[in-house]
């Protein structure tokens, strides 16, 4: 059995991951720990999960792997604890809020010889996988550009720290950009060389510190350019949390993919009104399965800490561009050496 633990319930994804681990026959969910005792007890009770008083107690349970679901800025200390304990790590995205932290995490895991996987579930989304197959088969011809969106409701309705500059590292740009940067790098097999971004705080739920909307235009080394809309532009009444779409424009045509269009529409007699229920395949389940399988097979997971680092590089550059009103060039440091 692969023994898995959960560090922190700060990120709401932790709840889903618990069920995902439980659904894997060769995995055993050992329990969790949380530096916020009240939060830990609340979620552990709700999920029927054993809660250890400290992370040290959790790691005393001979864990093979741990899923880090703390606030973005706390990923580094938690990953470092886990690496010291010799556990493989799946870290919620974004990998960190600063590149120095992300680099230190990659180095700590390399030194401890444990996996560092970044939680990019879109790599396991079935519509995106089919789209990537079409791209890989060359059905569109040479690509010119991409139009992508990852819009959502303001996540502070679930957890307030998403709009806390210190803990989240930023607002909508920090929260949503990394998914699409990662999928674009994965699909295009090229790295981002230039970032232009404009942000806005006109959408609700932000504060003086964090933006609630943003538009980003990336240029890749192979000349392909792509826009990302990372805005928290879905109101409370929106029938689902948000979505993720991509349009690829090539020499032979255009491919559009909506990662979350496989929905039922539910119209209740009473308020709150229309909701959508997705019936597509569960990408999170596939991501957790990959984490567990990579541990069992003693191989690197399909998504790494370097992927998390590359996505964060773009986010950091986006904030710099938004401040300056100018595109920012990325000079790739050889973080790969650290692995």
């Amino acid at each position: 059995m692969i023994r898995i633990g959960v560090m922190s319930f700060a990120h709401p994804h932790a709840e889903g991951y618990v069920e995902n681990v439980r659904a894997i026959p060769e995995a055993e969910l050992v329990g969790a720990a949380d530096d916020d005792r009240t939060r830990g007890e609340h979620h552990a009770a709700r999920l029927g999960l054993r809660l250890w008083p400290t992370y040290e107690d959790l790691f005393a349970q001979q864990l093979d792997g741990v899923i880090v679901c703390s606030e973005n800025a706390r990923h580094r200390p938690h990953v470092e604890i886990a690496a010291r304990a010799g556990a493989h790590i799946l870290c919620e995205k974004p990998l960190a809020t600063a590149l120095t932290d992300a680099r230190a995490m990659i180095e700590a895991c390399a030194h401890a010889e444990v996996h560092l996987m970044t939680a990019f579930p879109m790599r396991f989304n079935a519509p995106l996988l089919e789209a990537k197959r079409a791209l890989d088969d060359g059905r569109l011809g040479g690509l010119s550009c991409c139009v992508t969106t990852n819009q959502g409701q303001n996540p502070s309705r679930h957890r307030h720290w998403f709009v806390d500059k210190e803990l989240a590292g930023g607002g909508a740009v920090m929260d949503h950009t990394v998914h699409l940067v990662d999928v674009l790098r994965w699909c295009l097999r090229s790295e981002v060389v230039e970032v232009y971004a404009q942000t806005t705080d006109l959408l609700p739920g932000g504060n003086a510190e964090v933006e609630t909307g943003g538009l980003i235009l990336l240029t890749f080394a192979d000349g392909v350019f792509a826009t990302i809309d990372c805005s928290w532009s879905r109101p409370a009444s929106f029938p689902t949390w948000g979505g993720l779409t991509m349009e690829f424009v090539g020499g032979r045509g255009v491919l559009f993919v909506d990662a979350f269009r496989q929905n039922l529409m539910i119209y209740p007699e009473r308020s709150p009104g229309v909701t959508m229920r997705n019936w597509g395949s569960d990408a999170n389940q596939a991501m957790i399965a990959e984490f567990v399988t990579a541990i069992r097979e003693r191989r690197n997971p399909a998504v790494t800490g370097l992927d998390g680092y590359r996505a964060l590089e773009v986010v950091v550059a986006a904030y710099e561009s938004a401040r300056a009103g100018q595109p920012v060039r990325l000079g790739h440091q050889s973080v790969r050496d650290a692995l």
Partner: protein
Amino acid sequence: MRVAIIGTGFMGGVHAEAWSHTPARLIAFVGKPGAQGEALAGKYGARFVTDLDAVLADVDVVDICTPTDMHAEFTLRAAAAGRHVICEKPLALTVAECQKMIRACRAAGVRLLVAQVLRFFPEYKLARMLVARGEIGPPAVLRLSRATFRPRKADNWFVDANRSGGMILDLMVHDFDYARWVAGDVVRVFAKAARTSAAPDGIDHALAILTHRSGALSHVEGSWAFPPPVFRTHLEIAGASGLIEFDGPATTAVEVHLRDEEGAAGSEVPLPTSPLLESPFAAQLRAFHDALVQGSEPPVSAEDGLAAVQIARAAIESAQRGVPVEIAPLHQPQ
């Protein structure tokens, strides 16, 4: 009100049909010698001439439906003769030309009405009205997309950037005007453009990020890179207290699937349509007719047309130079 349409191509025909739903009288078509002009004249009971001067004395307004590079010349000639001008979008190829046209019409005491027809599309008009009424709060992030196929006329001036300004000016000008109508003046544009096909006539897909003075942002996509007969439009306005979304394909009211239909069917120049009791083109010319007859302000001014061209030119420059282009407020033409 007596009207002469200049230009007997695709848009000349669209306007003629639209005029037929107004009280105006279509007196003449002005165009190059050929069967197309004769046919239009015959259909609408008007004269066909090859020289504007032959009919200027007989009309109150000229409706310019020529390729864009001829807009300025015909506007100046009509204004000099004291005739009102209706001009297809984009108002002209350059900001300087637009200013010259506005100055000339002002000096001559005639109206210059620019056919930014998107303002008369009911879905766009309704969305803007809801925003103006404050139903979703101040607009914050707009997404506007207009994706279709490359025009495929015999005399394909659309794809000649010297005549049409290219895709960014000819197609994206609709959404540049709309973005400004909804979210106010634009102060910065960053754009990238691609040539996706082997066709030798330039840019056919472009993306632009507009920064409005209010702090709102607009994402504008324009494309001639789709195969016929696709014409997809998408509109999304996220505001401080709500969201408005229009997804063209999702509003297709009538679907017909014929087994023997060719995949590449459709017109030679793309035009978005939805079943309506009054077409946006007819609504537009009715509004222009009323503005001219009653002396009222039309829903879109020549200055709006100029501002849209200015944004498009900034997008073209940004895409060429790889840098954001700041848009300075234009001084009112004297």
